[in-house]
């Protein structure tokens, strides 16, 4: 998990998540406010530079994180550009490039790039636990927050269990043929499924032992210079939106 690693090691990891969230939000607004694809791409470039130079994310890692989404965008853009023409009979179906749609495809691509850069800024600088803390301050329903906290903690426990079981199964030729694979994978998922009940029961008992009788309560994290960071983020974000409006 490269994003996860960046979130805990980047230069801005102690910056208030509210500030980073607001800047990322401005990035999303800029992507949608851009009237031309070029302006949206400009916004994406600014966000990318801020993430790499500001937060100190290695450029290569940034690219590796963005690559799957970029590939996905390329495929989607291709499917947008192609148009299906259905003739008078059902057999008469043909694909052709819709020339009129080109402008639209460029617009969508620009917007997606801008949006992706804004998302990556938040994801690569802010740990999920900080984002959950931010959502707590934004008065997200308690149950949803508890689900997120528990999910974030437990998903690593499950990933480890899955990884270990996969290794053990592969070592005994569990994935040698397709038939074996299906059965091994099915067995793996079933084992993890049973663990859902076992682990939740254990966590429940552990919570009782520590005097819990309702929603999970945690201490709020304190961030130094929170107000200053928020002011900086908002002015930077506003400047980005203004810039995008000016060039488009």
């Amino acid at each position, binding site marked *: 998990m490269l994003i996860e690693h960046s979130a*805990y090691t980047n230069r801005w990891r102690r910056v208030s998540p509210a500030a980073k969230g607001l800047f990322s939000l401005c990035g999303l607004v800029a992507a949608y406010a851009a009237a031309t694809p070029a302006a949206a791409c400009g916004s994406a470039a600014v966000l990318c530079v801020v993430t790499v130079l500001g937060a100190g994310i290695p450029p290569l890692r940034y690219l590796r994180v963005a690559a799957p989404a970029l590939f996905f965008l390329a495929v989607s853009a291709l499917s947008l550009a192609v148009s299906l023409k259905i003739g008078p009979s059902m057999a008469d179906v043909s694909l052709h490039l819709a020339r009129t749609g080109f402008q639209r495809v460029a617009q969508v691509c620009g917007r997606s790039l801008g949006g992706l850069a804004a998302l990556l800024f938040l994801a690569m600088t802010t*740990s*999920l*636990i900080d984002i959950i803390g931010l959502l707590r301050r934004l008065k997200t329903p308690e149950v949803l927050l508890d689900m997120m*906290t*528990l999910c*974030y*903690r437990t998903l*690593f*426990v499950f990933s480890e269990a899955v990884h270990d079981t996969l290794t053990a199964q592969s070592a005994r030729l569990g994935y040698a043929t397709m038939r074996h694979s299906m059965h091994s994978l099915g067995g793996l998922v079933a084992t993890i499924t049973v663990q859902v009940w076992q*682990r939740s029961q*254990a*966590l429940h*008992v*552990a*919570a*009782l*032992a*520590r*005097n*819990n*009788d309702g929603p*999970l*309560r*945690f*201490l*709020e*994290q304190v961030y130094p210079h929170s107000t200053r960071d928020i002011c900086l983020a908002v002015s930077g974000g506003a400047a980005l939106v203004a810039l995008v409006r000016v060039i488009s």
Partner: protein
Amino acid sequence: MKQQTTDPILEVQAVRFRYPDGSVGLDGCSLAIQRGSRTALLGANGAGKSTLFLHLNGILRPMSGAVLFEGLPVDYGRQGLHHLRSRVGLVFQNPDRQLFSARVREDISFGPLNLGLDAGTVRNRVEEALLAVGMTACADKPVHNLSFGQKKRVCIAGVLAMQAELAQILDRLHAEGMTVIIATHDMDYAYQWADVLAIMDTGICAASWDAAQLPAYLDQLEGFGVGVPRVAEMHKALAACGLFGPDLPAVRSHSELLDAIAKMAAVGSRP
């Protein structure tokens, strides 16, 4: 069995407990834990160690019999449980089944916040507990990047943070001592560490011995299938060879045994 006459902090009296699926958890278990003692609970899987622990913290309620805390029967009302659980902490075997939050400080703050303490107090307690378990430097790492041992320390810190009196005395632990009970399969470790060894067997506390007196009960111990301390076994064998007198004090660890042998050798080589 040795008669306990001093001041027990926790006591279970003829506790019976059956799980909803019908399996027997405890079947008339009695045991007294002395204040300030170190008790090791030994027994095979399913002997009732975990069930007993869950009773000591008030999570399970006996179907018959009683659990006494500081001489008084546990009050299973909200207030009573609140009191009991703020005094009796529970650290589970597997930290992955106990830690809720991926942030170390958040997880430690969980218990004290449940006690209804204000944020400032909780913040102090969290820092104290982190210091006590030596995890201050790792506190900013997410839990999933910690080693097993480090996670375990976070669990202990979570319990420590609930009890101010305990956290304060921690650096003077040896002087004042808190009451500690552990459940383990490691007989060698238990023999070396504990003052009292309690043996669980099919839902009852079958025996409770002072560790110092254990050598006298080795034959009985073997019958429970929890193993025999290797040091005690070797001590016995050496005594059988005539190297030690039978009335020598118990040797509890490997190094103690080596010392004793060296001493004997020195005595033996003297003209």
